[in-house]
């Protein structure tokens, strides 16, 4: 029983707790997404499903602001027909959702949710015998590869998406799967490069040490805002989130790679998407937003410092960490419902012609600063600002592709014929907003 150390026992317990928190969080994120989209689109959203299950005895649980909706959805997903179309590759078709959901559910384990704990419960006076006097880390796995693990696991999700699209034997699914896999592997590179810029500044891959460095030197987002921005863009594109959700662009591809899926297998794709968002948000918080630490607020500052090891500190850190994750996820939801989807060629060009070169230059700049031994917050911020300024100056100088321009449709009110009279005034004030340019048709290029 040499391997059954207190750390292993703690890690297993933390994993069990966190995986359930994430599953419940995913269910309510779907609810939150529906509510947010409803309010953004001036609707109400799900508001009447309670926990009464139609029973008269539970009538007092009716309503509940619609909070029963995720449970109802879950039961419905279970009980609906899990249909397999006749022409699909049956084994891969069933296997693909499992391959998608497994990596999404195991990525979080190296996140240091609660710092360290000295193994003392104030309300329990007996011998806990969990720890032999030393502190244990409240994390899913205390391994020395640290955050490289998350990167390795997050990359596995692309297999399931590709397989699901291919196995469906449906053109929509196939194109969706192809698009998704190309997009995911493209944005993995800026993700890795932004992470590299952060790692160069920290000089370690251990989550605990990264948080400690951020507490003493200032949050990563202060020192490297450009790296944080690239990282945020990359995790949204990795998770196939809007505005990068071309894999399931409804107008073009129906449902993308999960067009043919129904019931629980569809739900697994959905669950994986949201679990992926939660995990990568936790990753973002760890690298750039100080992990579980809260600066400036007097009481909370000491309670969430890595040196506080009481059980209350652990709970406070858990709360702070999940609070930060929720803020990041909320930002992603709001972005999804307010920014229109990019075109697929725009997404891919952005990855290869813009984000990757910028990230490469950023890595070189940061490593030069580190070679000079001047890796202070100010210098890193200056490097980030310099790269950003260089990008903004150089971007207009690069020749743009002449293809895929907006073609003028002659005779329409936006491109009138030379001698055509166009009505530029409307009786409706709203219609004036997209009033065409007065005059003749533009010269064809």
């Amino acid at each position, binding site marked *: 029983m040499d391997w059954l150390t207190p750390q*292993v026992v703690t890690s297993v317990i933390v994993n069990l707790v966190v995986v359930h928190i994430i599953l419940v969080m995913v269910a309510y994120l779907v609810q939150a997404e529906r509510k947010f989209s409803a309010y953004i689109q001036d609707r109400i959203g799900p508001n009447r499903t309670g926990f009464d299950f139609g029973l008269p005895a539970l009538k007092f649980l009716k309503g509940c602001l619609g909070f029963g909706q995720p449970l109802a959805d879950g039961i419905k997903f279970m009980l609906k027909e899990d249909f397999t179309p006749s022409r699909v590759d049956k084994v891969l078709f069933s296997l693909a959702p499992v391959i998608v959901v497994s990596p999404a559910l195991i990525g979080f384990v190296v996140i240091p949710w609660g710092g360290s704990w000295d193994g003392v419960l104030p309300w329990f006076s007996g011998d806990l015998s969990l720890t032999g006097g030393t502190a244990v880390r409240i994390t899913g796995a205390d391994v020395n590869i640290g955050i490289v693990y998350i990167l390795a696991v997050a990359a596995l999700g692309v297999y399931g998406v590709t397989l699901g699209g291919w196995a*469906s034997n449906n053109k929509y699914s196939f194109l969706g799967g192809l698009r998704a896999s190309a997009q995911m*592997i493209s944005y993995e590179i800026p993700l890795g490069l932004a992470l590299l810029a952060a*790692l160069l500044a920290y000089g370690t891959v251990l989550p605990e040490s990264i948080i400690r460095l951020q507490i003493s030197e200032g949050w990563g987002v202060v020192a490297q805002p450009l790296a944080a921005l690239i990282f945020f863009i990359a995790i949204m594109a990795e998770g196939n989130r809007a505005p990068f959700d071309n894999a399931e662009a409804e107008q073009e591809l129906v449902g993308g790679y999960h067009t043919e899926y129904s019931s629980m297998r569809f739900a697994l794709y959905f669950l994986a998407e949201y679990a992926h968002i939660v995990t990568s948000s936790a990753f973002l918080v760890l690298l750039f937003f100080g992990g579980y630490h809260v600066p400036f607020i007097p009481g909370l500052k000491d309670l969430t410092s890595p040196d506080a090891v009481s059980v209350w500190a652990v709970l406070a850190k858990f709360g702070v960490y999940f609070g930060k994750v929720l803020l990041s996820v909320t930002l992603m939801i709001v972005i999804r419902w307010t920014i229109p989807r990019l075109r697929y060629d725009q997404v891919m060009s952005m990855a290869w012609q813009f984000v990757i070169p910028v990230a490469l230059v950023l890595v070189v700049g940061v490593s030069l600063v580190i070679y000079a031994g001047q890796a202070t917050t100010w210098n890193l911020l200056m490097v980030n600002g310099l790269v950003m300024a260089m990008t903004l100056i150089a971007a207009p100088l690069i020749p743009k592709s002449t293809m895929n321009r907006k073609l003028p449709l002659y005779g329409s009110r936006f491109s009138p014929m030379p001698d055509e009279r166009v009505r530029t005034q409307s009786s409706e004030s709203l219609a004036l907003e997209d009033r065409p340019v007065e005059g003749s048709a533009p010269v064809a290029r």
Partner: protein
Amino acid sequence: MIESFTLASDLSGYLPISLIVLMAIAFGIGNVVISQMLGPRRAGAVKGQSYESGMNAVGTARKRFNVRFYLIAMVFLVFDIEIIFLYPWATTFPNLAPQSDESLLWLLRILFFLFTTVVAYVYGFRKGVFKFD
């Protein structure tokens, strides 16, 4: 106090990971199996068709597709392997003495390594690999 415990250099740290991996796979398979058992099953000739917006399906999806996706995959391999090699460097390089000869050597080596990738990138750019229109 925190520094007193050592880093798990043995494999026992991976035990919780293997447990959660098993759990995640069991979760996926279990959910699929349960919903297969609970849900109804009604087959039909038309129902079994693949969905093409309500039209009769034309051919299969096992077709040739745009070669650009292969190009992306190949360029991805170049870059991804490069990044993987950069991680060990990125954890060691900042801990070297700044402006020392050893540090300079490490920096120049990795800059040359990055330069080879930039050459590949420029070649791909000139060949139009990164044009998506």
